[in-house]
């Protein structure tokens, strides 16, 4: 227990977390500090490319076994199943409409790649190994949650727009393509490829992550400021209750398929995190009546900071204790 607290404490005063806090504080104080959209996108492309590539190199180094297939399968099942858990929990905790509940559920079944990146940076900082293919699991978990939410809403009499164009958009959305593509390139080129470009994708990685988290803090803080009122206590409560629930389910899945302690921790992180890029965009097309302010503010303004500060160290400690 003392370990959890000290790990959480250390985590809280890392440059990454402090950068996020700085951004959030600046936005709440209405500072005009901001990153241009193009710079934010550029950093995000860099992070996706680097994390995908390094994941692929990891697979090239340690070979691929049935673990990869099992983990992908577990990820898909989690992503498709968690929305039902979230949808139920939302009914208990909030008065949101069915449409809004389905939209929020899709966000929580899916994953936040930056939470994943922050967690793997923490693991690396502590010298804890994990399976390189977990980044592919992350990619596989983006879409099934959307399918699940659309199924939920259809059954409830809703009328989602699920034209074929939507599916191409979801499966070929930029972040999935870049993540999976970089993973494949890392896998193909292996250690040689990494040696070629490691001064670009490894050395500055944590620094770029800090600046990106600063930007995310700014956007999250601005969202919270503008959405005050739209979020009831029940909705806010869901934002901190759902992550540990998801993590517990992710823990089970990780143990069942026999991941390493680091891998189990990352599976917990994926299950606990909520999408704030791919799913919001898909929901605007498929469920335009859902209020984007609710799900986006919840995912980015409540769950993301919760995971970043308390969640990740907690999941790490639990994974270490249970799977270690």
């Amino acid at each position, binding site marked *: 227990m003392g370990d959890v607290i000290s790990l959480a404490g250390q985590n809280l005063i890392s440059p990454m977390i402090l950068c996020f806090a700085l951004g959030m504080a600046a936005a709440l104080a209405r500072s005009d500090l901001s990153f241009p959209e193009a710079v934010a996108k550029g950093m995000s492309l860099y992070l996706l490319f680097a994390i995908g590539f390094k994941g692929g190199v990891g697979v090239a180094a340690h070979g691929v076994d049935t673990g990869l297939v099992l983990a992908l399968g577990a990820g898909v099942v989690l992503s498709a199943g968690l929305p039902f858990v979230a949808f139920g929990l939302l009914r208990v905790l909030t008065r949101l409409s069915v449409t809004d509940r389905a939209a929020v559920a899709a966000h929580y079944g899916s994953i936040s790649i930056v939470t994943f990146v922050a967690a793997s940076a923490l693991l690396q900082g502590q010298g804890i190994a994990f399976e390189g293919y977990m980044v592919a699991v992350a990619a596989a978990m983006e879409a099934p949650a959307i399918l699940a939410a659309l199924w939920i809403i259809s059954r409830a009499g809703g009328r989602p727009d699920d034209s074929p164009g939507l599916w191409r958009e979801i499966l070929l959305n930029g972040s999935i393509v870049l993540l999976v593509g970089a993973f494949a390139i890392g896998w193909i080129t292996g250690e040689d490829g990494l040696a070629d470009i490691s001064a670009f994708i490894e050395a500055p990685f944590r620094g770029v992550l800090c600046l990106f988290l600063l930007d995310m803090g700014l956007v999250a803080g601005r969202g919270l400021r*503008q959405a005050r009122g739209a979020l009831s206590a029940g909705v806010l409560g869901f934002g901190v209750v759902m992550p540990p629930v998801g993590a517990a389910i992710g823990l089970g899945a990780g143990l069942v398929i026999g991941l390493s302690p680091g891998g189990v921790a990352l599976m917990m992180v994926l299950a606990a995190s909520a999408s704030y890029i791919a799913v919001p965009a898909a929901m605007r097309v498929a469920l335009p009546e859902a*209020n984007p302010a609710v799900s986006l503010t919840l995912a980015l303004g409540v769950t993301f900071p919760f995971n970043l500060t308390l969640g990740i160290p907690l999941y790490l400690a639990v994974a270490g204790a249970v799977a270690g």
Partner: protein
Amino acid sequence: MKMHDAKRVEILVEAMMETRLTDALGRAGVTGYTVLPVSGGSGRSGPWSREGQVGRAAGMVAVVCLVRPDRLDPLLEAVFPVLDRHIGVVSVTDTQILRAERF
């Protein structure tokens, strides 16, 4: 200089719907349009800004079409179903254009 009557249709639509909108314009035979970036705004659903954003969920674009007056109705009919359930504002202004042979 010789000018010709035309309509300037300005469609403010959420960014996620841009391709669907321009596809619909194409199907309606409107191949001339220009897309301008939008950096922020405010509506019934509150204010928003593109600053620092990565995702495309919050954000709009402005699509400007200059058309001959007789092409207006097919254009609006093509556009309407796309915007129906979505955030979008359409305005139509009388204008005059040079070089109408292009339209």
